[in-house]
């Protein structure tokens, strides 16, 4: 269930220091999130596509990842202009298609795609465990880092537990439908998963205590920044600053 298939490839991006990639991805995402023009997110998409090409990500697999979000954005593009005010681009019967609403939806779509593509190119190209360690080295609170690493570690186990419970229901001829019995059964499934997750967390805590855990995690992985990483961060921050200047100009 935890898929980090993009991290298995090799490219210039893959070889960069994970900390450098996180800093750049975060700064770029913040700039895009607060941008109000349509030009900056458009350039952002172009830059992100460039990063994606540099990371040599498979086009089909990346498009598949973006498809879900873009389906939602399509709904936004269709409906937001219908409820927004301002001059109309065209009318469908009594309903006007607002220019301002369309621009707003386009801005959201571009921003969203640019951020997703950047994160895919820069962050999904590292193992989730590497991401956790890099975040730890960037002084993110330890509790958040370990919450993230534990989630990555156990989401798969919980997924398998859920699949086991579903199989147990299936082999006893359970067919879900829109009825009270189905809702009750799904409730049992969710409840059982919660109980099992709680029990497992207690057992893991015991396992940690047995190995001398006293509230502090020691990080074993260390990173070394090379000249290439410094050049990457400086070049990326320059692009981000130029985009920020275009935004406030």
């Amino acid at each position: 269930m935890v898929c980090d298939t993009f991290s298995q490839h090799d490219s210039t991006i893959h070889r960069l220091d994970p900390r450098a990639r996180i800093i750049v991805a975060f700064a770029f995402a913040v700039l895009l999130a607060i941008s109000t023009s349509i030009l900056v997110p458009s350039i952002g998409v172009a830059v992100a596509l460039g990063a994606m090409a540099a990371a040599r990500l498979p086009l089909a697999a990346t498009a598949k990842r973006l498809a879900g979000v873009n389906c939602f954005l399509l709904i936004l593009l269709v409906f937001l202009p219908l409820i927004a005010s301002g001059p109309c681009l065209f009318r469908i019967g009594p309903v006007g298609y607002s220019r301002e609403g369309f621009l707003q939806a386009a801005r959201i779509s571009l921003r969203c795609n640019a951020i997703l593509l950047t994160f895919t190119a820069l962050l999904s190209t590292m193992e989730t465990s590497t991401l956790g360690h890099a975040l730890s080295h960037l002084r993110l609170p330890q509790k958040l880092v370990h919450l993230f690493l534990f989630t990555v570690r156990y989401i798969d186990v919980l997924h398998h537990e859920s699949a086991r419970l579903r199989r147990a229901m299936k082999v006893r001829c359970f067919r879900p439908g829109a009825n009270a019995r189905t809702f009750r059964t799904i409730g049992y499934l969710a409840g059982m998963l919660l109980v099992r997750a709680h029990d497992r967390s207690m057992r893991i805590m015991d396992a940690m205590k047995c190995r001398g855990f006293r509230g502090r995690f020691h990080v074993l992985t260390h990173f070394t920044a090379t000249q290439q990483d410094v050049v990457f961060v400086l070049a990326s921050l320059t692009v981000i600053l130029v985009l920020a200047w275009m935004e406030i100009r």
Partner: protein
Amino acid sequence: MKDRLIKLHNVSFAYPFGGRVLSGVDLELNAGERVGLVGPNGGGKTTLLHLIVGLISCTEGELWAFGRPRRTEPDFAEVRASAGLLFQDPDDQLFCPTVVEDVAFGPLNLGKTADEARAIVADTLDLLGLAGYQNRITHKLSLGKKRLVSLATVLAMQPQVLLLDEPDAGLDEETEARIVNILAELPLAMIIVSHSRSFLAQITTRAVDLRNATLSPFDLGRPVAI
């Protein structure tokens, strides 16, 4: 007396909403001894191991480990550094993303430096035939490999005693044989919980049966239903 590593004297335990699982249990583990622990499901075998390392506290009786009576949490923190507990489910034991981090977790907690921990990891993985597994993702390993890595996490703490909770459960013949060979060659005292008499017969020096909350000697050679 000086060879005695663990001693339980008249130990009783009952879960708050369950029956009594241990009643006046006496057990001794001496250096070089490998004790097999058999008994029915839910009979208290895992509870007994958890009591020894202080994950739960006995309601009555006395527990001695490594020459001292053990009652409080700091006492048991010391016990856990010398008595390695292998959990039944490797997914409970392996919680770090990679093998190297999981195996190094214990040594680092015991105050080893990162370099010392890495050296211990390499040696332990070599010993278990897992060289090259350092950077493997733990949750992607097969059950057999997870079990071996779990054993590595315990051995990396260089314990004097191993407490193994069904180390053979769910393994194929080849992996089971490998675990038997590894355990048989380790110069450590052990308490091994298992439902397989043939598995225990290959490793242990004696066996006890935990039934109806009490312990009694068990003959692994006799065809007695477990």
